[in-house]
């Protein structure tokens, strides 16, 4: 029974730590630490967060395109598909399905498929420190669309770029959101060096990630 395992492991831990009860001060300090978590040492950000984000994202082998409005997302995806034969077959996260996609395309609005040429999903935030994007799972943004496509298009609002991951955690705490099943911090295309130490892209996920940065 795992119930007895639980009591046994906890008893072992307590015994190893001296079977000491927390003092009131200790309990209060743990409570405080949990409620307002301290921020550790972090690298500096050089210049504007958005400029560092773009530079770092490109360093991570993302491609980055700036557009002035979300209405320009569909034309941006059209340009990505130039030269592709046949009717475009793409997956769009429900959060972005209202943007006027061409009616003559095959558009899958839903979770990812076994063969998934291209998907378009929304990011919650961008992190300037590392040039990463953060994506949350929800009914409007299924996680499988972040990993199954050959090409992953991530839509990020410029105003959602922050310095550090801790800024995103603080935002989520303050908005008191229902915590999602999955939080993805993505910092590059899928890769591996497990054969002969040679870097190969992709491994299991997207071979390319294109960020459409929307100024707002």
């Amino acid at each position, binding site marked *: 029974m*795992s119930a007895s*395992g*639980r009591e046994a*492991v*906890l008893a*072992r*831990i307590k*015994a*190893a*730590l*001296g079977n000491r009860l*927390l003092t009131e001060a200790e309990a209060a300090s*743990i409570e405080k*630490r*949990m409620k307002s*978590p*301290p921020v*550790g*040492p972090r*690298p500096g950000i050089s210049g504007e967060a958005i400029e560092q984000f773009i530079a*770092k994202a490109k360093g991570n082998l993302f491609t980055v395109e700036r557009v002035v409005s979300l209405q320009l997302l569909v034309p941006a995806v059209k340009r990505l598909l130039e030269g592709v034969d046949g009717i475009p077959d793409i997956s769009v996260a*429900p959060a972005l399905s209202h943007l006027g996609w061409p009616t003559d395309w095959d558009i899958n609005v839903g*979770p990812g498929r*076994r063969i998934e040429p291209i998907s378009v999903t929304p990011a919650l935030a961008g992190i300037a420190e*590392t040039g*990463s994007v953060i994506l949350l*799972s*929800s*009914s409007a943004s*299924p*996680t*499988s669309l*972040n*990993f199954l496509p050959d090409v992953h298009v991530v839509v990020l609002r410029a105003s959602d770029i922050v310095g550090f*991951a*801790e800024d995103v*955690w603080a935002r989520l705490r303050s908005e008191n959101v*229902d*915590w*999602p*099943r*999955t*939080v*993805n*911090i993505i*910092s*590059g*295309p899928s*890769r*591996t060096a*497990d*054969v*002969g*130490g*040679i870097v190969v892209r*992709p*491994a*299991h*996920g*997207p071979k390319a990630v294109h960020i459409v940065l929307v100024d707002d």
Partner: protein
Amino acid sequence: MAIAGESFKSRASSALSDASLQTSIAGLKSGFVAARARAVAALPEFEAMRDAGAAIKDHTLAHLDVYLERYEREVVRQGGKVHWARDAEEARRIIREICAAAGARTVVKGKSMVSEEIDLNAALEADGLEVVESDAGEYIVQLAGEAPSHIVMPTIHKTTDDVADLFEDRHRAYGFMDRAKSAAELIGQVRTILREKYFAADVGITGANFLVAETGSNIIVTNEGNGDLTSTLARVHIVTAGIEKVVPTLNDASVLLRLLARSALGMEVTSYMTLSTGPRRADDLDGPEEYHVVLIDNGRTEMLGGAFQSMLRCIRCGACMNHCPVYLSVGGHSYGWVYPGPMGAVLTPMIAGHEKAKELPHACTLNGRCQQVCPVKIPLPDLLRRLRHQQWEQGFIDATTRWGISAWAWLAQRPKLYRAATGLAIPVLAWLGRSSGRFRSLPLASGWTAGRDMPAPQGETFHAQWARRARQK
């Protein structure tokens, strides 16, 4: 996995004469060591981060019960289940029961060192389940019937040709009839095969780099995306984690993630860092229907609160082995179990017992590089020295060595006698070796002279020279 039967010495000897292994390890030395050095040099805050990382782990370990209970409460609040396992056997039983209850046939696994530690695959296969490793490196060693030789880079011992041979033989079953030559083609085969497995998987098992008490999340860090497809597409997601993986908050995890990528690969970040929390929500379009976490003790509470507690700070980055002259000479398989290198030389005796790993604490020159690069400042050389001491106390040292060390200690504690004995021995050895200036073999030192000659002494003892120079000043 079971602990290898033969001795470290004999495995190390064959590793030293394995040309292909030596080539692979040389790449590790030049590649990852240099990459880590560059990443650290680019970050003035790195030392402060190491201190912060060690402090976070120490704080959590000092209140481990409190944080694990908080973590459990959050997992349950999000609809997940937490199971507690005292040892490997209990952990295997819990996971087998979850698989049985789910009516599982196919299990896909992301990389998890603790699942290697509890020898999970063999147990699931014995129940008739198909178990497929999805990390490309783990997939390769599984197909080869081998164990990983590095905790971050499981195939560091294999060349591209080795993998091409293996796939040519084993991938015909999937319709790949021609020999793939390049790394890209070989990985392409893995991608195609695994894509089907992810969709077929009933159960997806991943490890956890961290567990977050604040949110009840597990965090995995990968570059391939295999862990994400494993945990997203299977009906049931099981997380295996040692009890020491918990940290209080997301901010604490962020500090440790900065240390992990730089220390493991010399990179600022990996492609994917993923927090999974509970099963899919009611209106989610994908994600698992069930979420289980198996918290595994398996010897960890015996390190807690004692002289070895600092070992529980370990975040499994592999920097200690990448910088270890012994690991870099003999490779991971020589260590005989799941965890190689300096961290393995401590963990294996602590988890599996001294009697199963007698030689490991001695496979160390006490040069201290592991401690210098450890992102959470584990005093590995001190722990290894302490293990040697314990072995001596508990009688695990063989009679000849004990006699030799006792005799030397007796002599070394009597300075006059020691000087007289060495003062006599040195001229005698110098005279005996006068013709060639070296010895091809020496009594009681055949192990040393088997690989190289012993130079003959050229004159006085160190003590005599020191005294003479002091007089001359």
